[in-house]
């Protein structure tokens, strides 16, 4: 038998699984409507939340595969950061609420920058999902520019990068593969202007006291 490229096979298997998760999410919508009691509703919501995270994780792996195999074509466009971050908070608030955390964003209303919105959506959700595991009360996403770089930062009020000891969680599908940071780094690096490319920085949050993950994108 001819030897096949296992990463391609895995990528397409992940894609299949992701589509099935999508179908399950659709089907769950109708269950949502027949759920009567508040405990039932809560259960369904937890299930939905878990499936959504699973879906987003599969998406991350698919991008990771494409980035790592040089098969990803970036689509740069101008983006209002206020709108972009508002979108991210909107999409991730349910996940934060499920863990009783507050998720917010902070940027200037007229900040506009150029980046691949689709890829950065996956990057921000990866970062926020990660922060969900460590934060005590609060997560904040912010955006600002420094010397021709756009910085998107995700901060939390947990113990910071050096003292990461997440509590055992009862949340479904909550696993750390360590791929998240690698994915974030590849995504940042893929953003290139002239001879400058993006990068990431791990640090501590001066405002919230926990970890601060910054993604720098050349402008």
């Amino acid at each position, binding site marked *: 038998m001819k030897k096949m490229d296992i990463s391609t096979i895995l990528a397409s298997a992940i*894609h299949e699984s*992701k*589509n099935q*998760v*999508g*179908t399950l*999410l*659709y*089907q769950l*919508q109708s269950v949502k409507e027949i759920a009567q009691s508040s405990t039932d509703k809560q259960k369904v919501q937890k299930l939905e939340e878990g499936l959504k995270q699973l*879906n987003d994780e599969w*998406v991350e792996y*698919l*991008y990771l595969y494409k980035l790592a195999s040089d098969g990803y*074509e970036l*689509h*740069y*466009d*101008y*983006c*209002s950061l206020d*709108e972009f971050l508002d*979108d991210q908070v*909107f*999409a991730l608030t349910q996940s934060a609420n499920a863990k009783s955390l507050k998720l917010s964003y902070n940027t200037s209303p*007229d900040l*506009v920058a*150029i980046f691949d919105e*689709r890829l950065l959506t996956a990057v921000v959700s990866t970062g926020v999902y990660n922060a969900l595991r460590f934060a005590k009360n609060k997560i904040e996403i912010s955006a600002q520019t420094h010397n021709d770089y756009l910085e998107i930062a995700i901060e939390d009020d947990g113990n910071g990068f050096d003292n990461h000891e997440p509590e055992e969680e009862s949340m479904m599908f909550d696993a750390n593969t360590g791929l998240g940071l690698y994915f974030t780094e590849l995504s940042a690096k893929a953003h290139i*202007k002239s001879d400058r490319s993006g990068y990431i920085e791990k640090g501590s949050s001066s405002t919230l006291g926990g970890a601060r993950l910054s993604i720098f994108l050349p402008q």
Partner: protein
Amino acid sequence: MNPEDFSKKKALLIEDMAEARIMQKKMLTDFGFRSIDIAMKAETAIELLKSNNYDIILSDYNLGKGKDGQQLLEEVRYSHLIPNTATYLMVTAETSIEMVMGAIEYQPDGYITKPFSQATLQRRLTKLIDVKNKLKKVNIALDAQDYSTAILEANKVSSEAPYLESKCGRIIGDCLLTLEKNEEALSVFDRHLKERKMPWALFGKAKANYNLGRLDKAESSFRQLMLDNKFFVNSYDWLAKTLVKKGSLDEAQTVLVDAVMRSPKNILRQIELGKLSMSVEDSMTAEMSFRRAVYLAKHSCFNEADIYLEHLRSIVAIAESGEFTPRQRDNFNATLKKIHQQFFEDPDVKAHTYHSEIALYNANGDEKTAKQLLEMWTNEAENGVAREPDAEFKKKFSNLF
């Protein structure tokens, strides 16, 4: 963000999967749409679009066996079946989105990736409609083909909403190209390229150079775009056009063959390849392209007799080069039948059809049938329902007279 009033808007939902269709219709109904038409495939959608005006079109990229959502969009935008003021939202999976983004010429107004919640869809639609409202005057001018006004309005929007600068720059550049103000267009595209290598700006620049006859410059930009992103199939079309203008027909054909392999369902590209193959006397490739074009023409905006006639001519060309097979006879008859069903009222089409039929029998050495057909044609011409055989025909087939 103000909640948008959807109750007065008319929506068209195009989705082949029953489950998703029911879900999406429910979502649209839940946030206020009262008028929602549904199509399960692109062909039905075209019929609906021909007789209705929609404010919002929500289409899946993947539509089963027929045309996909992107081809549908290209077709309806190209033939102005939907106005620029209408919002086209494409529903995609992660894998198909690159095909949508790769279409540099016709892009949807927005896309949403599956799976999505009702809240996400509502939010996305509200935002898109908000942008459409900001660009309303621009789009009205575009629909009226008043490109100077469109440029004026786009400049206004661009200074009021900086995040629409790229969108407006693109509209302005394309309007200038349409107005044949190529030098001005060039400077608009160059200005945007200075900021960042935006594919649409490089594409526009290449088109301007093509129009200005700077073919080497155009060629290198189109090639650059092909290198940058393998999904930019439109740049293959333009590279082929450029090569044709430079006289490198064979090379142009190779480029189009490659493009057709990447996206075989684009009818205009199939027709181009067919025509080009005829002119380099590759009747086999021509036949294949026109056969596909005939197949795609039905239920498209481009269902014209010419495509069918070209297919017949390509088969005649095969017969004349002595490589005719019974299989080609079937192909010929299939297309012939379609012409009879759809276009035979037209005296001109009738004449062209007889011409090809006679040429085919003649090339295959069946002079008797050829003569019988000629007699039928002459009779019909006398009754005024077919155009008469012209001098060129009489000269070529003097053996039949």
